[in-house]
């Protein structure tokens, strides 16, 4: 995994990266004008899950801790928005910060319990914590609606149509991506990469590894919570499946398919998986099989993911 990561973290020149990003952003800005409403909704979903997958990549790719509990953090924010807006009548601009705060607190609890473990133990502990949240959502039906979930039109009328909401999502996604890029390239973000490479080495340099991992996990949860709040407005519905293990696995697979440790790769992974899910399911009911094959193909032929492989090939050509 570390060799995969080390090749995956090779970066392009800042100018080339900027050109790619500006081009992608311009494309994303003009696309809705030429797409039907359904496709605009799919694009919106890609952006929201892209942010979610990037939040997972902060931990998996940069801190070297693969979480299976992020679906619960994401879904907590979705639940809080839908509960307070549709049940309590709270204004959305109060519900969203509250939802992000709740998700961040859940992330902090997960972090306290999980940061002292690594590898498969971290994976299993976050999985167990996520299952607890799922169980609460399923059983605490007075608040969560149990299996029926919570339904409500939480999106304000001004962004009620798909295109308007898409642009709000695009702006939020761009701002959050920028914030995450700044975070992972900050002195603190670099210490997470150091911990991923060798926690013992960081300790010998005088770092409080546990505290850095805690903050990294909480920040990752904060971004997952923001994605979850956006998802509440997108979906207008939440049920236990939103906090279930499959949600965490989906986010993680997106990060892996795009390229763990590349951040932007998570957006590509989100695009690949949601596009396949939506368009392959149009032709066959066996779309999960197709997704599975894509994942197996990626693991065998491009273990560094789409973006990681592109970067590795470019680096090889450069050498």
């Amino acid at each position, binding site marked *: 995994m570390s060799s995969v990561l*080390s090749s995956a973290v090779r970066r392009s020149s800042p100018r080339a990266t900027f050109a790619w990003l500006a081009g992608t952003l311009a494309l994303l800005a003009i696309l809705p004008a030429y797409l039907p409403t359904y496709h605009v909704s799919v694009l919106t979903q890609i952006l929201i899950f892209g942010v979610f997958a990037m939040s997972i990549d902060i931990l998996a790719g940069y801190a070297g801790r693969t979480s299976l509990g992020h679906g619960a953090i994401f879904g907590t924010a979705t639940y809080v928005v839908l509960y307070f807006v549709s049940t309590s009548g709270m204004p959305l601009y109060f519900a969203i910060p509250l939802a992000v705060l709740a998700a961040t607190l859940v992330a902090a609890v997960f972090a306290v319990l999980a940061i002292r473990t690594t590898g498969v133990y971290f994976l299993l502990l976050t999985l167990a914590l996520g299952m607890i949240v799922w169980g609460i959502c399923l059983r605490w039906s007075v608040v969560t609606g149990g299996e029926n979930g919570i339904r409500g039109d939480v999106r304000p009328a001004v962004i009620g149509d798909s295109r308007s909401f898409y642009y709000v999502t695009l702006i939020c996604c761009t701002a959050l991506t920028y914030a995450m890029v700044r975070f992972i390239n*900050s*002195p603190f973000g670099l210490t997470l990469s150091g911990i991923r*490479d*060798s926690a013992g*080495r960081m300790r010998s*340099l*005088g*770092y409080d590894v546990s505290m850095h991992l805690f903050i990294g996990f909480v920040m990752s949860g904060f971004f997952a919570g923001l994605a979850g709040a956006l998802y509440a407005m997108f979906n207008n519905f939440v049920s236990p499946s939103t906090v279930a293990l499959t949600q965490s696995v989906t986010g993680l697979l997106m990060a892996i398919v795009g390229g763990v440790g590349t951040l932007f790769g998570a957006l590509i992974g989100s695009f690949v998986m949601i596009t396949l899910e939506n368009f392959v399911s149009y032709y066959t009911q066996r779309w999960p099989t197709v997704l599975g094959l894509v994942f197996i193909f990626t693991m065998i032929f491009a273990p560094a993911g789409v973006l990681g492989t592109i970067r590795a090939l470019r680096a090889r050509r450069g050498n």
Partner: protein
Amino acid sequence: MLEVKDLHSYYGDAHVLHGATLEVNKGEIVALLGRNGMGKTTLIRSIMGLTPPTVRAGEVKWNGETISGLKPHEIASRRIAIVPQGRRLFSSLTVTEHLTMLKSPRVKEGWTIERIFDAFKRLGERRNHRGSQLSGGERGMLAVARALIQDPDLILMDEPSEGLAPVMVQRLEEVIIDLGKTGLGILLVEQNLYSALDAASRVYIMETGKVVHSGTTAALKADMSVVEKFLGVHG
């Protein structure tokens, strides 16, 4: 400044340090010599609070404050830095990232990244190279630079010349002497006797977990029988 008194450290049940005692004063370069397996690295790790080993007796004082028992990050926050044995760089991070990790480029006080690149020109030229792409000498320089950027009052250097070509050892020795002139305290663990004697003003020699000789470098140079006795080197 740094006082190590009667330190006993263990790896599990193995008693490795048997009452090591030494001092490093402000702005002083002190060499800690000894053959392989005599406890030099264990002593450095014990001072820095790194586990293993476990310190079971004795005391480490820094500017009068007892720091033994503190966590490594608490000791580092008291302006003590370490150049660990084998450099321990991060292969996926660039030279700049190694330094940025420790101090934001926005900070303009003390050892800034610009000042580091000015002092270590070669590192400036290799600023975008990853740890895995550096030569042995460059890695050694980066390990020292990484300690310096923390603006320490004391650096614990564990065999910084290990594995370097003679010309790089000489360059590193010049760097250490220059740093000593800035008022920085350095505890230099070395197997390279002549390099250590050129840089340091005082010397401790360790054998089987104990300090068996202490004195000035000049005195040691005048009487090399001690060196022959404890290090097996013929003067």
